[in-house]
């Protein structure tokens, strides 16, 4: 599907605002997003292990490169499969 042209005045950001943080991760599906920066995987491996111990459903995702925004497909996949996302932002 080709991109759509924004019909609005563009006074609002193109992306929707983040939802408020949930008070608990219980019953939540958590995306662990590696943005492809060095050692992001180490951090997320650790988080995944900790979340596993807590019985939280954690799933791993990876961006092709940290230099660009996530592809629309990846964002859509995460939004469809998870309730919460945790990104490993910096090395």
């Amino acid at each position, binding site marked *: 599907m*080709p*991109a*759509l*042209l924004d*019909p609005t*005045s563009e006074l609002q950001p193109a992306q929707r605002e983040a939802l408020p943080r949930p008070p608990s991760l219980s019953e939540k599906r958590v995306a662990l997003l590696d943005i492809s920066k060095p050692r992001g995987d180490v951090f997320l491996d650790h988080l995944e292990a900790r979340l596993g111990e807590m019985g939280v459903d954690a799933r791993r995702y990876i961006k092709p490169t940290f230099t660009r925004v996530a592809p*629309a*497909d990846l964002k859509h996949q995460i939004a469809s499969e998870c309730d919460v996302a945790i990104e490993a932002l910096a090395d």
Partner: protein
Amino acid sequence: MLGGVFQSTELATPRFAVCGDRVLESHASLAKDEIMIDIPKDFTGFIAVVKRDCSTCRLIEPAFRELKRGASLQIHSQDDPAFPETIDEVFDERRLELSYRLDIEIVPTLIQFQKGEETARLVGWRRKDWRRLTSLPMLGAGLPEFSPGCGSKSVEPGRREKLAFTFGDTPLQARRIDVASQQDEHELIFERGWSDGLPVVPPTEERVLRMLAGTTRPPAEVIGIIPPDHAPCTIEKVAINAVMAGCKPEYFPVVLAAVEAACLDEFCMHGVLATTYFAAPIVIVNGPIAEKIGMNSGHNVLGQGNRANSTIGRALQLVIRNVGGGKPGGVDRATLGQPGKVGFCFAEREHDSYWESLAVERGFSADQSTVTLFAGGGVHPFGDQKSRDPESLTRSLAMTLRTVYHGKIYGRTDALLVISPENMRVFRETGWTKARFRAALDQALTVDGTEVVAGAAGIDEGMPAQLARKRLSKFRPGGLLIAHAGSGAGMWSAVITGWAASGPRGSVPVTVAIKS
């Protein structure tokens, strides 16, 4: 072969110039539409654009052979690089870039260049013209005198917009919103709040470019400031919303005029939107454009079913929603609203009207195309199966008009009377002009204040007590609009109630000319 940088210009000759080499950066003043095409710099000779699918192109193949022997000739084939078979070197033009850049509309087209500049152009085959241009007096000796060309593949429906998109000189500035491959674009549009609740046509770049072809106005032109956010609105933004509404490009000038009218201060679009009342901008189209774009002024004129009627009014409402930010529950505070708020647009039935049109009454000529905006509520039916003389019918219409807004509120609310052909027939047959009808109607709509002051008839609502001794008119001067519309059968007319705050303190109907 050297590369040439071509600068597109207007249709006047020379159409463009070969003015550089492949190093684009060496041209500090390059405009956006300067492009690269594989034509030698300082090229002198002929360029022919052809396609196998064109019988004239096939017919004149011998002429191409003769011309190739006598002059420098490049042949660019739009559909088959193996055509013409008897020519050694044919350029593959299936991408249609050259055709797009050179504005080829017909094949065959023969263009003469001298030192990189176009000096002449022929379309189709007219032997004497080809002979004169090529200085080959015997060119095409065995061919007919004349054979018309065919349409260029670059101008097939929808193709030009695709080419504009492909070759990168799109004028569009709007933000691009990516759609994931697994995502449903219609759901994305609903989620983002761009829709009025009904499906819309996804506004892709290609569709928006096609819509913009409906006007000569530049996409970046700011057409007005849209309430309630006071957002500057460009022609491009209107085009995006017109695509979403389902408009065809030929409707676009009408949509633009409607948006311009809604931005006029006296129309007070902000108030029309923000009121708790039922009001919405109702678009009435007059003049030749209505028939030209297939608008309905007959059967079910105020209802569904005609694409132009249904989508033009909707496009205006989507502009207000999306560009202006006016949404129900936000600044749109309507208590109940009405179905016409999705979009309400119709054309006046002018071809057999006995009276001058709404637009003519409002100072425009009959051959001008115009848009009138009226801040109106819903449709109130009028039915009278017995009145056959104009006096009775006028008094009968007045009885319904008296109820506009409230039967005891006078001078506050405008109205639009849509009179049907069967009702108009009564006036035509008795020679009643519109002015005579208006005068009689005004008389029938004038009452003693005592009848309508607050408390009269046991109803608290009504006019202030100090008006009890006055004669009161139902409508302020200029507050009753009259248009002729509907099908030929049915003794019905329609009263469309104006906004409760009609007139200079609120909304005044506005009429603007439709520009190309």
